[in-house]
């Protein structure tokens, strides 16, 4: 069976859930091989094995240096050459997409981004995407070179299967061309203490209707164990950080439950939440377009509705 390369998504060495999802997808297509660029710890090795990595290619972080993503693409190109994998998977983040795009040119291969699911058609990956603000579902295949697929969070339920996890050190020489853009500073984001927005089962989002006060939104989120999101209007007003923006130019989420409060439901916002399983809205304007897509809506002032809901939820959860 062919190898399937998974570029490990990790923060400071700790493996993210998206990696487990990609390893699970990789197993449908062949033998999962994790590609770990960084300092591999015992914990990380165990995590990768747990979700089925048969091989773990490790690349010393010093080899890729302080340069932007190009060296990572060179690492993958070398491994593609060496292992002739059935596919290469990476996460569909800004960095993942760039690595994939460069790899596509280097190996003259087709690339699919934003996959929300990947199935196997006799070993050939078939990727599902949600397009046009979630109004269409598209299935595609790569028809040239090595399939390169950038996968979104929540695209699979991680399945624990014991992989051999054989560690193989890979040495790599980075071209001069890859050294043209260099990182000059990295400032890690503070953790919010809430679930990761793109992974959360419930998201409570606030918009311009909050008037800048996100407290009722955060409190409701906390009572439900939810992540907090925001519309661009709220982000542009400086009320909430851009990392939490939902929509076309922010995060695309697809939780079990999405609660939109003080959000009108513009097409660009819908692009980020329309595929949520259940949608609830609280908006004081009964004509707001968001009400066209809700399972349940309350016409009312969020500043009075949300605190009451929070109180009642907390009580019932007791």
């Amino acid at each position: 069976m062919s190898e399937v390369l998974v570029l490990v998504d990790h923060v400071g060495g700790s493996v993210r859930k998206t990696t487990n999802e990609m390893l699970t997808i990789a197993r449908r297509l062949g033998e999962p091989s994790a590609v770990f660029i960084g300092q591999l710890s015992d914990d990380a090795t165990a995590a990768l094995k747990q979700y089925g990595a048969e091989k773990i290619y490790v690349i010393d972080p010093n080899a890729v240096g302080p340069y932007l993503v190009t060296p990572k693409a060179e690492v993958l190109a070398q491994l593609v050459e060496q292992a002739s994998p059935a596919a290469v998977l990476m996460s569909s983040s800004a960095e993942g997409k760039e690595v994939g795009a460069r790899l596509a040119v280097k190996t003259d291969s087709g690339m699919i981004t934003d996959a929300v699911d990947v199935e196997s058609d006799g070993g050939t990956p078939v990727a599902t995407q949600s397009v046009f603000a979630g109004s269409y579902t598209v299935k595609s295949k790569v028809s040239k070179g090595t399939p390169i697929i950038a996968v979104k969070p929540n695209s699979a339920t991680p399945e624990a299967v014991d992989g051999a996890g054989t560690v193989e050190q890979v040495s790599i020489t980075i071209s001069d061309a890859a050294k043209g853009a260099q990182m000059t500073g990295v400032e890690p984001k503070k953790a919010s203490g809430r679930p990761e927005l793109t992974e959360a089962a419930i998201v409570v989002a606030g918009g311009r209707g909050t008037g800048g006060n996100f407290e009722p939104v955060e409190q409701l989120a906390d009572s439900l164990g939810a992540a907090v999101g925001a519309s661009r209007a709220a982000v542009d007003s400086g009320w909430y950080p851009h990392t939490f923006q939902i929509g076309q130019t922010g995060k695309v989420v697809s939780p079990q439950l999405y609660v939109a409060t003080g959000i009108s439901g513009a097409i660009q916002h819908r692009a980020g939440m329309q595929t949520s399983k259940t949608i609830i809205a609280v908006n004081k304007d009964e004509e707001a377009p968001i009400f066209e897509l809700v399972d349940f809506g309350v016409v009312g002032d969020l500043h009075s509705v949300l605190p009451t809901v929070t109180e009642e939820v907390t009580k019932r959860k007791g």
Partner: protein
Amino acid sequence: MNIVVCVKYVPDATGDRRFEADNTVDRVGVDGLLSELDEYAIEQALQIKEKTGDAEVTVLTVGPEGAVDAVRKALQMGADKGVHVSDEAIAGSCALSTSLVLAEAIKKIDHDLVMFGMGSTDGAMGVLPAMVSERLGVPGMTFGSAIEVDGDKVKIRRDGDTATVTAEGKLPLVASVTDQTGEARYPSFKGIMAAKKKPVETWSLSDLGVDAGLVGLDAASTTVENTEARPPRTAGEIVTDEDGSGAKALVDFLASKKFI
């Protein structure tokens, strides 16, 4: 300094976007316009021009006949000249082939800085900047939420999920910018009048020396197997809050769906 801004003509997102029988995006039967996300790249290019004083901004698009509208809008905003690569053979091209056409066109234009928006509003892959940077063999800095040119250096800030990264590269290079860089200007009346006299060249594949067999739907590196319209969401129950009744009904709904 020479700045090339790559832009795309896309179906209007507020209209009815759909696929054709061959699973390509219907680009003729629906209203098209300059992808809004490219306006941010044009805006940053114009600001760089205003700051450095001696820059020339060329807008480049690859697309069907109507795509020249996207170029014209950019000229109205203040870009200096336009290039429209148009060839029937290009229809249905994948990102990989499109990057080839763009890169060959850019090679024919004097360029120090090549700029893109963060992604198109239709395909939304956001991979072309990296592909073009790879093909041109120059550094690439993508998804900048702020960009600054300082002599022959370009600095960007990228707001990632887990960290904010600042990066620096030397010209020539490719950069893409997000909508976080700030509102794009509207064309002024003066701008609209001036744009009428600005030059727009139309190039075919043979002008670029690109083999038509390398582009188009048949040569695409990805194939769409099928497209399916999602059933539209239907509006559920809507209640009007009166003295806390809305909150109570909402909690009952949450409980009925087992969220609490």
